């Protein structure tokens, strides 16, 4: 009995000691970026730990498709990590409203970000920010430069040129014109509809009008991208209906396809996989000289678990994430994830540079379905996946798809009723 008391006393003194000297705190990061595990472990975490002795960081990613479900269960069970990688918009907003994420507005470092960058992780009225913005991804098309040279094709800038290029590749027959499948569904919506769409609905203008209820998904600007997608089907490889996302990546990096409808997040993977030179072109506009719009989607932020046992260390880490130093390391370690901080970051990767240069030439917007509009049932984002696939396969007409989506949205979203 005495021995037990002694042990307890010893244990409590060590507890006090740790809190007093803040010895070796370990922070755990929840993330869906399991592709980036090596980069975090080899570059980002050592850089932070070198500057902040006494804080150890553990990066524990889970599979992207399961992340939200896994994270929610962990948070409810109280076993989630100290730092939480934030999905943009509602998924994180729900976590904040449920009290799982801490309000970070009092952090000085938050002033390093523009309002647009912060908007993905704020309450609807902008009164509280709960995640530090980390990066955005830009949509466009990556192409095989060797293939284009061989066939004498230039980067298309208008839609007519784009389809002419596809025809030429198809006629030649050496390459599959475009590498994309519809098996996993999301590529059709993310790399299809939301890639080419902003040129039709004029980026932010159309997106905001849709949220305000001034435009409808049955309007020509929102239906036309489906009509364009319907033309894609003929240029995708044989059996594209069962082609998965990794299949498409492999087909392109093996040099079997000429064009890959992409998000900039592919860059680092493609750089290591492909042994030919790659270029990128932005989504083609309808007529030469039109203003171009690109999807520059705020994609990753990082916040703090409200139940974290090491709030001070977690804040130290978040402040570091908000610093220009992190932006430089992150932007160059992960070409294709473009830092959102106000201070511009010099990138080395040519392909990433090409993507980020569009920010200067075109108007930026984010994916149309992400903010507010995917809050109800049916979920507009999930419905858009199905609709984009149906458009490419030709199982429904663009008008039918628009009508179906509008009906679903109007069933729960008041401004659209």
């Amino acid at each position, binding site marked *: 009995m005495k021995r037990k008391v002694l042990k307890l006393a010893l244990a409590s003194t060590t507890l006090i000691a740790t809190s007093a000297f803040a010895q070796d705190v370990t922070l755990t990061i929840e993330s869906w970026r399991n592709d980036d595990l090596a980069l975090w472990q080899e570059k980002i975490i050592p850089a932070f730990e070198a500057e902040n002795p006494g804080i150890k960081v553990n990066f524990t990613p889970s599979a992207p*498709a399961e992340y939200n479900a896994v994270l929610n269960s962990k948070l409810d069970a109280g076993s989630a990590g100290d730092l939480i990688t934030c999905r943009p918009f509602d998924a994180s907003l729900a976590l904040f409203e449920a009290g799982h994420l801490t309000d970070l507005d009092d952090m000085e470092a938050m002033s390093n970000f523009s309002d647009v960058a912060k908007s993905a992780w704020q309450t609807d009225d902008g009164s509280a920010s709960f995640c530090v913005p980390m990066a955005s991804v830009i949509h466009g098309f990556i192409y095989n430069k060797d293939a284009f040279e061989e066939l004498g094709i230039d980067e298309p800038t208008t839609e007519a040129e784009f389809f002419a290029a596809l025809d030429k590749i198809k006629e030649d027959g050496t390459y599959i014109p475009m590498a994309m499948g519809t098996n996993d569904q999301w590529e059709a919506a993310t790399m299809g509809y939301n890639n080419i769409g902003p040129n039709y609905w004029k980026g932010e203008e159309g997106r905001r009008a849709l949220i305000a209820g001034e435009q409808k998904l049955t309007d020509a600007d929102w239906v036309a991208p489906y009509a364009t997608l319907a033309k894609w089907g003929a240029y995708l490889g044989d059996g594209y209906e069962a082609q998965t996302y990794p299949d498409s990546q492999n087909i392109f990096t093996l040099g079997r396809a000429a064009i890959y409808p992409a998000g900039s997040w592919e860059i680092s993977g493609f750089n290591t996989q492909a042994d030919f030179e790659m270029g990128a072109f932005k989504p083609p506009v309808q007529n030469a000289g039109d203003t171009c719009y690109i999807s520059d989607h705020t994609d990753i932020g990082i916040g703090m678990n409200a139940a974290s046992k090491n709030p001070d260390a977690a804040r130290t880490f978040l402040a570091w994430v908000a610093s220009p130093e992190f932006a430089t390391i992150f932007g160059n370690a992960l070409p294709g994830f473009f830092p959102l901080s106000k201070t511009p970051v010099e990138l080395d990767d040519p392909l990433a540079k090409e993507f980020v240069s569009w920010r200067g030439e075109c108007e930026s917007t984010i994916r149309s379905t992400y903010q507010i509009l995917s809050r109800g049932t049916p979920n507009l984002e999930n419905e858009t996946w199905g609709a984009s696939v149906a458009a490419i396969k030709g199982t429904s007409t663009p008008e039918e798809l628009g009508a179906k989506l509008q009906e679903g949205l109007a069933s729960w979203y008041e401004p659209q009723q």
Partner: protein
Amino acid sequence: MQNRRIRWHIAVFLAPAVLVYTAVMIFPLFNTLRLALYSKVDQERVFVGLTNFRTLFLDPIWSEQFWNALGNNFWFFIIHMLVQNPIGIALAAILSHPRLRFAALYRSAIFIPTILSFVIVGFAWKLILSPIWGIAPSMLDAVGLKSLFAPWLGKEEYALTTLALISVWQFVGIPMMLIYAALLSIPEEILEAGEVDGITGMASFWKIKLPLILPSIGIISILTFVGNFNAFDLIYAAQGALAGPDFSTDILGTFMYRTFFGFQLQLGDPHMGSAIAGAMFAIILVGVCIYLFGIQTRMRRYQL
């Protein structure tokens, strides 16, 4: 007086199993049913009675998905009943033939897929059937039937049937083993008596063996029913939680998972998810009851 003594040992022996089973099965089951009667309003859990079920069955958005999943589930079950179980019985009948050589080898080979993980089966078949890397298109090409190949898993009209057949391939060993055991338990004397009366070959299977293994077939049917209506893994491993293309492979399990845990931008709703789980439980319960009271009690049994 002696008889009315309380037999404590019965309770003591039953206790461990009852406690474990209650903790891991009965309590979660009733808690899930209870959860279905609540809803979340402004971060608060509120009792709403049967509203969730009303939404599930009457709201067109929910009911369309529910009936689609239920219909797909029935198709999944029908394929198993029409393909898996007859093949299993046929295999067992062949295996129990006394003059078949290497019977043990065939038996193990056919049974092995059953012990494989769903993830491995889903992944392996996805690769086999892949139009890009798969061996299915080249094998068909080798026999000049390339035109018959289609990207089956990506077509609305074929995907569910393809997955059901993959599942049949995986589980055909189970009915085979059960029937095989039943066939082995039929005494030689009965078959010999039949032979004396002139019942040989196929006739002995139809007239003697089949009636004797009918109770086993009944058990297999009910196991298939429960297994199929609880199915989830294979569809999730092969087609993801959205059960594409266009929800054509969506069954109750994937529908429940998507609703309960959420998917991509869709947030999880444990209460609606529990309502779906409750509906699944009811469907299985009704099915099992129909079997137990409607079929099993009327089945004729023979004293062997």
